[in-house]
Each structure stands twice: as C-alpha cells, then as structure tokens.
C-alpha cells in the first residue's frame, strides 16, 4: 500500500467513525426523504429536478461542517507536525483527506438513489436529467470539499473554517447576480463563476464539457493551493 493508501485508510476510518459524519448523513437523508415524499405526493410528476436543487442547498450548508476539521483539528492538536515530518508528500495528505470526505458524500448520494428507483418503479421518468443531476452533485461535492479543505488549512479554529467556507460557497452561488452590476468583460466572468449556473444545465439533462470543466478546474486549483498553503512553512 502506498503512502496515499495508508493515509486514506486512516482518514476513512476517522471520517466514518465521527459523530459529525453521522449527524450530517442523518440530516441530509431525513430532509431529502421528507422533501421527496412531499414533492411526489403533491405534484405526481416523475422527475427529480426540485430534489436535486434541494440537495444542492443542503450540500452548500453541510459540507462546511464536514470539512472544517480536516486540517484545523490536526493543526490545533499538533498532529499535523507528525504528518508533515513523515516521508510522505503534502499532496498525498491533502488528497487522502479530500477522498475521505468525498467518500462520505458519495455514500449519502448513493443512499438517495432510492428516489430514482421509486420513480422508475412507479412511473416513466426522463433518465437524462437524473443521470445529469447525480453527475452534477458529484462534481459539486468535489468543489465544495476542496474549498472547505482550503479554508480548514488556513486556520486552527474549526468555526472560522466553516464560516469561511460557507461565505465562499454563498459568494460563488450568487456570482451570477453580481454579473448584472459589472461592466464588460467582468460580467461574463462573474456569470461563468456561478455555482448554480453550471449546476442547472446538468439537472436539465444537458451535458456540457464547460460545466464539468468549471467544477473540475476549480477543484484541482483549490487542492493545489491547499497543498501550497501546507507546504509553505
């Protein structure tokens, strides 16, 4: 097993035995189950567009709580010094924490697959927006977790890390609104920075490389910056 594998095993164990993970999972599934049932009974329409937007909101609110400990806790307890003086690359440490958080979100999303199964069983849903929606949620999770890890790497205070992540998520969410106030070409830049703008196209069932590229590029860039923050001592 490589150093990344050893670190990932430790992070997965820490993530999946943490009460925070179970609280986040429980809140997510309870709220989504309630919303799904309510929407289905009222509209009698076999699509998940509304549900995907609910998941989007919940992820924006819950991911800061999930990622706030990542580095802030290691910094506070000085265990970060143990990791950073071991013969492993900083990138491996960052990637292990990123993948462990992503695994928890993937497990939550996997549990929510019960909703399309129910729709498929009782109705005839259009599957393209459902595939697109789940792909968008995975890509969104990558970006949110990477930003959450960056803020956690900048402080040893978990609350500060969570608040900073939430602030960044909300700024990105409403970036398209700010576009109306900006002169050219900044308006296009703000429009393209929008978290929700790239999400909505997936949920409609349209797949554009530019939308996937937005999430992947920003995720990779943020993970790289996190690595540099930790390496710069």
């Amino acid at each position, binding site marked *: *097993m490589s*150093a990344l594998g*050893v*670190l990932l095993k*430790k992070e997965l164990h*820490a993530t999946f*035995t943490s009460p925070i993970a179970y609280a986040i999972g429980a809140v997510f599934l309870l709220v989504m189950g309630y919303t799904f049932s309510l929407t289905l009974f009222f509209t009698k329409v076999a699509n998940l567009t509304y549900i995907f937007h609910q998941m989007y909101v919940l992820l924006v609110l819950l991911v800061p709580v999930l990622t706030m400990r990542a580095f802030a806790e290691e910094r506070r*307890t*000085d*265990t970060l*010094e*143990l*990791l*950073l*003086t*071991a*013969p*492993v*690359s900083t990138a491996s440490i960052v990637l292990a924490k990123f993948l462990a958080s992503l695994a928890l979100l993937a497990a939550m999303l996997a549990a929510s697959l019960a909703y399309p199964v129910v729709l498929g069983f009782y109705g005839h849903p259009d599957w393209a927006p459902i595939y697109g929606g789940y792909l968008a949620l995975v890509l969104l999770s990558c970006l949110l977790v990477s930003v959450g890890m960056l803020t956690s790497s900048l402080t040893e205070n978990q609350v500060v890390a969570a608040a900073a992540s939430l602030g960044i998520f909300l700024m990105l969410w409403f970036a398209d609104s700010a576009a109306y106030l900006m002169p050219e070409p900044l308006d296009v830049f703000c429009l393209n920075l929008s978290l929700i703008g790239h999400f909505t196209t997936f949920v409609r069932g349209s797949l554009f490389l530019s939308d996937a590229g937005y999430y992947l590029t920003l995720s990779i860039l943020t993970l790289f910056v996190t690595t540099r923050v930790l390496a710069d*001592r």
Partner: protein
Amino acid sequence: MSDRSPVIAARRVTKLYGAVPAVRDLTLEVERGEILGLLGPNGSGKTTFLRMVTGYLSPSTGTLTVAGHDTVGEPMAARRHIGYVPESVPLYPHMRVREFLAFMARLRGVARSEVGRAVASVSERLAVADVLATPIRALSRGYRQRVAIAQALVHDPQIVILDEPTNGLDPRQIIETRRLLQSLAGERTVLISSHILSEVEKVAQRVAILLRGELLAVRSVADTPDLEALFLSLT
C-alpha cells in the same frame, strides 16, 4: 556518505519569521551515534532548529543535511532517517496504541509484513505492550510520552529528535525517559532540546548552548566540569 561524516550538518542556517530571526547563522555538526543536547532558555531557537532538521520548517538561508540529504532538496530521503517527538506530544486520541504505532510505521515506510514485528519490538522496549489495545485518550501523561517516543522509534531510524522530552513528567517518568535516551547512545544519533541544564547534562555527550537564535558554544559534557557556570556566563 562515509561513516566519519556528520549525520546532521547545519551550515550558516538562518530562519526568519518576517524580519525577526528565530535562528541566526547557525553552524553545527552532529556525529553518528552521538547524543547532543540543545540547551537554552525559552525562545532561544531550539524548537525552530529542530523543526528545520525534521523538514517541518525550511531554512531562510543556509543549508541543512540529514544523513547526507538536503532537507529542502531531498526532503523525503532526509525524513526517512528521522524519528521525531515534538514538544506537545501530538497523538491521535481516538486511535488505540497498536493502531497508532502501526499507522506511523506504515507512514514511515515499514513494509506491511514487518509492521507487526516492529510494533511488538518497540512496544516491548518502551514498556507500552500492556496498553496496546487501549485508546490513546485513556492513557496517562507518562504513557502518552512513551507512546510518542515509540512512534519515533518504530521504523528504526538512524536519528531520533526529541523536543523537551521530559516536560510535564513526574520524577519517576523523567528517570525512565533519561535511561531510555542513554540506552540509545551509540546505536542512534540523538538530538534533544531542553531548558533544564541538569537533564541535558545527564543524558548528552555534547551540549550546544543557544540564546536568541545564536549558537554561543558547543562543549563536551565530559570536558566541562562546571557546565552550570559556563551556561550562566554565556546567557
């Protein structure tokens, strides 16, 4: 690297925090199998120097080599030779002792097939075998210190670095830690820091005295009958 070359070599090392120097123009060599004590009051730059040797901090200027490897140019190669116990004794409280030692062994490159043997051997030596199944959060201060030293030795490193290893220990634990460090002499190179002169004097073969980031003197303990007087005169 030949057997006669220094295991740790610092040449004109300076570490700046902003414009403030924590370590200034420090040149020091540590020989193979030697126990060298860094002595100085709080804020003298001992921890900063140790952190540079471990690769946790990078020198602002100067070069530092560990087992012939530059700590900035070849950090991974340098770190493989080091076992390190930071001053704050950082451990993962949710892990059991066995799990923690196995994790640190794997992280430091011990082969999976060798981990069990390495953990058993180091836990026997550090007298923590009876708490291997105990969660770290349930351990006393003395046991935590021993587990911290065990994680530094589990991969059988050439160099062991301990920052204030007797801080917060009771007299019995201090004696045990001292005996352990003395037992490492000859087989490993040990670098320890302390602000307690009597502790360093009992363990180290040489002492390096630091003040405000500057190296004031390096003396053999055997050749310096009144280390206390020397320390007072320099600081």
